[in-house]
């Protein structure tokens, strides 16, 4: 048997796959936040960053495909393990205490699948810019920053999060991500065996700190927009649109 077959066929090996794919996805989550936090800088920072990514297709597409493949691998391994785990106890207990098992550890599959569903929505919302799912009446595909010639991500983000239900859904998803990572980040060290009594308490604490920092970082964007961040920029571009696309005197919505 080759190495990959041996890894995939054993329960420990599948956990290696979950740990490694989870680690790369975690790196993406950290990097994505760092990029997104540029929303709190003047608009041209975020838009230039977006233009940089969108104009380097030979970089962005391989990265997207690798991330997608890892996400699929992570989910397939998780679901297969869950099926085996459920089969390992055909009759459940009449009374069962979770004991030392934390809520986060017991709900990894559920939190993970819900984050997966969120990712689909998020991609439709801001990457595929499907107008039907942004609920603002604005077509994000038409928001172009004249300075870069690429998408006006700053305006798109502010429009998107101005809708309270959309922002609330984002906050819920980030809460689940925080829960998932609080357990997942420490578990990947355990699953790969990179843990000993010397630094395992540090891993446990660092996993929680990272999860909370990511939650606060990501949440700050919809919360900031709901508190009025970026509205002056929208007014500015709306007045420009009014001047160029509509004859004087006509109101736009």
């Amino acid at each position, binding site marked *: 048997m080759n190495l990959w077959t041996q890894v995939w066929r054993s329960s*420990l090996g599948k956990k*290696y796959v979950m740990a490694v794919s989870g680690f790369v996805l975690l790196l993406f989550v950290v990097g994505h936040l760092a990029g997104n936090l540029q929303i709190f800088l003047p608009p041209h920072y975020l838009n230039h960053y977006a233009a940089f990514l969108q104009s380097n297709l030979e970089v962005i597409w391989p990265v997207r495909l690798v991330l997608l493949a890892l996400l699929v691998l992570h989910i397939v391994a998780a679901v297969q393990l869950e099926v085996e*785990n459920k089969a390992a*106890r055909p009759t459940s207990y009449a009374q069962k205490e979770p004991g030392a098992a934390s809520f986060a550890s017991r709900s990894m599959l559920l939190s993970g699948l819900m984050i997966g569903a969120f990712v689909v929505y998020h991609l439709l919302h801001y990457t595929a810019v499907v107008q039907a799912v942004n609920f603002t009446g604005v077509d994000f595909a038409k928001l172009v920053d004249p300075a870069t010639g690429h998408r006006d991500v700053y305006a798109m983000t502010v429009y998107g999060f101005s809708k309270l239900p959309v922002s609330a859904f984002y906050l819920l998803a980030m809460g689940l991500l925080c829960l998932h990572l609080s357990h997942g980040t420490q578990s990947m060290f355990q699953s790969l*065996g990179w843990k000993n009594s010397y630094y395992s308490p540090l891993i446990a604490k660092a996993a929680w700190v990272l999860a909370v920092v990511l939650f606060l970082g990501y949440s700050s964007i919809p919360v900031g927009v709901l508190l009025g961040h970026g509205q002056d920029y929208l007014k500015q571009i709306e007045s420009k649109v009014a001047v160029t696309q509509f004859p004087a005197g006509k109101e736009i919505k």
Partner: protein
Amino acid sequence: MNLTLKVWRQKNANNPGHFETYQARDVIEDMSFLEMLDVVNEDLIAQGQEPIAFDSDCREGICGTCSLVINGIPHGGHKGTTVCQLHMRRFHDGQTITVEPWRARAFPILRDLVCDRTAFDKIIQAGGFVSVNTGGTPDANALPVPKTDADLAMDAAACIGCGACVATCKNASAMLFVAAKVSQLALLPQGKPERERRALNMVRAMDEAGFGACTVTGACEAVCPKEVSLSFIARLNREFGRALLKGEPKKSSGGAG
């Protein structure tokens, strides 16, 4: 004190099984949980009923035979204790106590509270032999073992193979058991020659027996009567990964041309 017991009764492996309620009267608080069941069984026999079947052997907490889930916790939830060492002073008068067997596909129930733990024996057998020198008694310290390694190996060797880790795990995973057995021998020089083969074969036997995978919830170490640490599971993961990467040794002629 008087107690109400809800006990799992099952005629044999093929019968579905159900809960039966019994009254345990005049229970003395110095009794162990198993002695309390003995008294209930005496009453059942006197009434001409079938006594409750449950496993026990040494009754001093070292053999790993007793296996009851009491109020949803294997071994009853008193830290570092098997059921035979759990005393009735941990309960209060009038309490209702639910008693169930270990529940896992790999541990089929034979009768009432007795389950078949042959799957653990199969894992041990898959581990194979350990090369040990025979002949005269070796000189003291001829084979140096650091004290910390010896102590850690003993912590792993403390596993009595009761299966409480499987019983409490939400995935019915046997990882803590296998981790203890693999770690114990991997830490000592005597176990070194078969180190990789043992890790691979024991993990394979564990998967084949139908146990679930580890989700790192830590429920197992909390109920383990010998308090075997979750860090041994990390060590098992490391041993298995190491063995996979080393791969099967290439056959050579051994100098025979």
